[in-house]
């Protein structure tokens, strides 16, 4: 991941009436693929709108490519493409016409060949190019939106929940496209999503948000370093209930659940757990089939960050 900072929020606060949408938010956007992670209502879309000059911060400032997002939003918007969760087009236009219009608005000239190529990249069916957008399916609209965001070779593409309207197959395709575009067109991305496993696969840098605040920022490895040392184990043992009852009382056990006849245990002290597990199994008179350690994932990191904040 590149260390070049292309955007920065400095203690940005945004209030909508009594609601604090962003609370002294300070974050950096790096060249590469950035993931903006948070549950619904975390302030992700507010942060995106702020970076495009659609809303003005009450306190603090936001910059992209060295330009203030509110005062010089025209400059910012000329370098950024965006795909919003709420897709909206001129429904009476065809796909081609919509892209031609957006190219004009972005001040770039694109030939028919380039448009076809772009629509090919996002895999929008050739037959749909000349049809009115009003008859497009949700998936087709999503693809058109992505093509629209990529018009004019922007330096940064912001994707707000880019896979929300797609089936699992197409979601995978979109996620494959992102690193490809990053490599071929040198485009940076800021992807906002609450589907963490998807982001884990494509993002270099993560920004974790909750209730308008920044929880954590960094690479995945940096996330794991900062997170708690809790480790998750999956234990296949029979009978599972008797072992579960004994493990519940152990101090180093953070979380315990029985899923499909397996015990899912999160422990604070791995060494102590390893020492105590055989004793507990013997005490329960159980038979051990398998013990597997699960690597930390972003979801766990996020949960832990939220809990710490709370």
């Amino acid at each position: 991941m590149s260390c070049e900072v292309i955007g920065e929020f400095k203690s940005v606060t945004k209030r909508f009436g009594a609601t604090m949408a962003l609370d002294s938010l300070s974050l950096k956007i790096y060249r590469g693929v950035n993931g903006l992670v948070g549950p619904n209502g975390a302030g992700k879309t507010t942060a995106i709108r702020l970076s495009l000059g659609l809303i003005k911060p009450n306190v603090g400032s936001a910059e992209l490519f060295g330009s203030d997002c509110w005062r010089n939003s025209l400059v910012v918007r000329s370098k950024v493409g965006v795909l919003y969760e709420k897709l909206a087009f001129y429904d009476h236009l065809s796909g081609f016409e919509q892209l031609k219009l957006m190219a004009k608005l972005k001040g770039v000239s694109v030939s028919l060949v380039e448009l076809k190529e772009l629509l090919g990249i996002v895999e929008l069916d050739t037959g749909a190019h000349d049809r009115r957008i009003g008859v497009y399916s949700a998936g087709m609209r999503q693809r058109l939106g992505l093509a629209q965001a990529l018009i004019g070779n922007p330096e940064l593409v912001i994707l707000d929940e880019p896979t929300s309207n797609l089936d699992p197959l197409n979601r995978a395709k979109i996620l494959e496209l992102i690193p490809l575009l990053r490599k071929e067109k040198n485009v940076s991305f800021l992807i906002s999503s609450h589907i963490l496993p998807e982001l884990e696969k494509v993002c270099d840098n993560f920004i974790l948000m909750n209730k308008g605040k920044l929880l954590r920022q960094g690479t995945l490895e940096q996330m794991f370093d900062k997170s708690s040392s809790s480790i998750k184990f999956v234990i296949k043992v029979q009978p599972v209930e008797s072992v579960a009852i004994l493990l519940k009382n152990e101090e180093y056990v953070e979380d315990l659940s029985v899923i499909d006849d397996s015990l899912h245990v999160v422990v604070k002290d791995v060494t102590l757990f390893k020492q105590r597990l055989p004793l507990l199994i013997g005490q329960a008179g159980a038979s051990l089939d398998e013990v597997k350690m699960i690597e930390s994932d972003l979801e766990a990191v996020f949960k832990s960050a939220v809990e710490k904040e709370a």
Partner: protein
Amino acid sequence: MSFRVGLALLKTEIGKVWGRPILEITVALMAVMTLMSVQPITEIVRHSEFLDIFRSAVMGSVSATVASLMLPWIIMCSVLMALSFARDYESGLMQSILSTPISRKMFFMVKFFAVVLPLVLLSWVLTTFFVGLTFYSSPWLVLQLSFYMLPVSFLSLMFCGGLGVLVALVVRRTIPAVLTSLLANFFIWYPTTIDTKRALMEGVGYANYLCLTPHDGALVFLDKLLGIVPKGIPLEIADALEYTLPASSFAVLLVFYVCILVIPMFVYFIRRFEICD
């Protein structure tokens, strides 16, 4: 460059706003209202006075036609303007377009004039057509007099549109914005239906100020531009504002109304309006 961008966006906006069946409904509404207002002279006059009376008849027809057209254009302007701003805000289209490097100034003007300009043009064309159908023996006279309605309809529609934008930007929801805009504009239009002369004769106090309302003022302004001199005004009401103020006063009044509504909305939109929901 930005002019061409604006034109491209204007073309798209006009296509969206005036898509089927909006244009057809507008034409039907206006045609129905316009037809009723053009009547040929039915009196036998002195031949020596015929030209003056003919000219008066044409002026009267233009004035009556514009007065009839006012209600349809107010309805369409208030509905379409509220739809244009509120629906685009609600659907997210405003957010998408404003995320491109287009200035808010350009965006506002395009959306505003995409509604106002076609209505002005349509009103003028229909007025000229229907008045011309009756008085085609003097086509240049009809054309000359019908041109006077252009500034009047433009200012009236600017006011109407400004009110629609105000409602849309405050309410930000499509159906409530459309209904509120329609009601507000209808309420302001209503004084034009009051027979001012009769009200003045009956001593109704506020009747003197009806001509200062936006749409009634526009009609009085048109009459003065056309050179229509009210006949048979009793002495006791001869000093009413409607009869004493010159055309220029009404022009200033209409421009004032447009300025106090449209300019603040314009400035608010380009400097303060935020897209958030």
